[in-house]
């Protein structure tokens, strides 16, 4: 059963009264009390795939990096080339340690020439804030943790844009994927971004904490007849897993490099100037991968979980990083780090052929098949 931390020690989202009214099952998550589900997480997942879901993501960390050298400071602090980002655009990137290990994966929004907003995972916000502050010393840049100044609401799913268009004057087709702009939504000022973590089209809205409740209510009302439902962290996790998106703590961590996770493309080794982790990552990039992140589907209904062994001919060859029953595929799915040799052997073995690949699910090997990530991709 879910580990519930004592509620008194957890930070509350500005939307806590809404979650209480909706009767959400709440859970401790990275120091925050957040909605796990409102009813059936499977129904919430399906609603996001077929209609739309409304998410409270106020636990995410927002760190502002501002000043004349803000771009240069981020180029040094992160693996991406943020100086090349146009104002109004966003980028998925990572902050790594000297040894190339991932400290967090981030979305960085460039709001203006000298103004960036770094969005960090809740569990890592303090570390990211500390590292950015440390790394930006000597640059003309100021680093400020603004997490408590923002609530974050996401609307995700094929009906999201239509629902949102009814409550904003902003021309949504002009808001491109991984772009953001100030906008009025339900009469409230927000930073409106076309980003998400579900594999669907969708928007994220950063707003003042006191605007979160009216914004949520306005969106919920606008989406009522278009299948919009509130969706919790449980659905968010299965949605991102189907979309093949990594989760920090599962696929990513300090002992993992971006290359291990198949995300070497975010490391801009050709950018001018040094950056933290450059030397180590340049070495990693030259070597063959020590492990590969793979997708697995299961033939049994038993669900692979984080930490379970993957077996090749009954011998351990990798570890499950995330696993869940997939509402879309109808079978359990998993991401796992595999020995590169086994991954290529398994790829050569036709699907449905033999059962050399399996997952040790509590002492019993259950046959699994290697599949190409992501498990789910929306029709464009």
């Amino acid at each position, binding site marked *: *059963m*879910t580990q519930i931390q004592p509620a008194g020690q957890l930070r509350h989202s500005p939307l806590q009264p809404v979650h209480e009214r909706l009767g959400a*099952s709440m859970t401790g998550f990275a120091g925050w009390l957040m909605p*796990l*589900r409102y009813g*059936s*997480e*499977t129904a919430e997942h399906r609603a996001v795939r077929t209609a739309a879901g409304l998410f409270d993501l106020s636990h995410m960390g927002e760190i502002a990096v501002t000043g004349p050298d803000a771009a240069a400071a981020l180029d040094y602090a992160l693996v991406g080339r943020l100086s090349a980002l146009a104002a109004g655009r966003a980028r998925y990137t990572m902050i790594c340690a000297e040894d190339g290990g991932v400290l967090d994966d981030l979305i960085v929004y460039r709001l203006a020439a000298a103004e960036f907003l770094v969005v960090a995972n809740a569990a890592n916000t303090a570390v990211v804030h500390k590292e950015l502050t440390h790394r930006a010393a000597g640059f003309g840049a100021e680093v400020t943790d603004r997490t408590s100044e923002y609530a974050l609401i996401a609307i995700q799913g094929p009906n999201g844009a239509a629902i949102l268009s009814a409550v904003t004057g902003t021309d949504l087709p002009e808001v491109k994927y991984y772009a953001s702009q100030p906008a009025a939504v339900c009469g409230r000022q927000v930073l409106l971004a076309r980003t998400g973590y579900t594999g669907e089209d969708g928007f994220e809205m950063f707003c003042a904490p006191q605007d979160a409740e009216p914004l949520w209510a306005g969106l919920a009302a606008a989406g009522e007849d278009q299948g919009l439902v509130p969706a919790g962290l*449980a659905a968010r*996790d*299965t949605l991102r897993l189907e979309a093949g998106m990594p989760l920090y703590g599962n696929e990513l961590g300090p002992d993992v490099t971006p290359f291990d996770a198949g995300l070497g493309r975010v490391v801009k080794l050709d950018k001018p100037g040094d950056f933290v982790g450059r030397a180590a990552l340049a070495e990693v990039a030259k070597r063959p991968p020590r492990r590969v992140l793979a997708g697995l589907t299961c033939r049994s*209904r*038993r*669900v692979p*979980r984080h930490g379970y062994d993957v077996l090749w001919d009954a011998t351990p060859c990798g570890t499950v990083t995330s696993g*869940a*029953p997939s509402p879309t595929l109808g079978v359990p799915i998993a991401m796992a780090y595999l020995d590169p040799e086994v991954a290529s052997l398994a790829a050569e073995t036709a699907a449905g052929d033999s059962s050399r690949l399996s997952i040790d699910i*509590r002492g019993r090997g259950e046959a699994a098949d290697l599949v190409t990530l992501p498990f789910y991709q929306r029709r464009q």
Partner: protein
Amino acid sequence: MAVPEQLHYTAEHEWVAIDGTLASVGITEHAASALGDVVYVSPPAPGTKVTAGEPCGEIESTKSVSDLYSPVDGEVTEVNTEVEEDPGQVNADPYGIGWLFKVRLAGQPPADLLSADQYAELIKEAD
């Protein structure tokens, strides 16, 4: 959360309905709600000898897996094959169509089974 008066309960959040020498077993509404959507159940096969308080199967939801415990001593006579096919029935109707297995009792049911009042008290403390 419903805690029907006529049933007995365990601290492992299972209910047992005793009818003569036959006991029907399921998980409580509180447990089903805490688990979330049940996606897989593996009750003990008919003919299995079960012992009160011992793990005898498993139940999985989106987020977690838990052991099933037998609340009584005896031999499994029947499992709910419809729930095996459609585990969501455990969430839909945990005390009805979501029952899991039936046991032919070996002797008297354990004296430490909880009454509805005692179980209601237990889950109130946990909240």
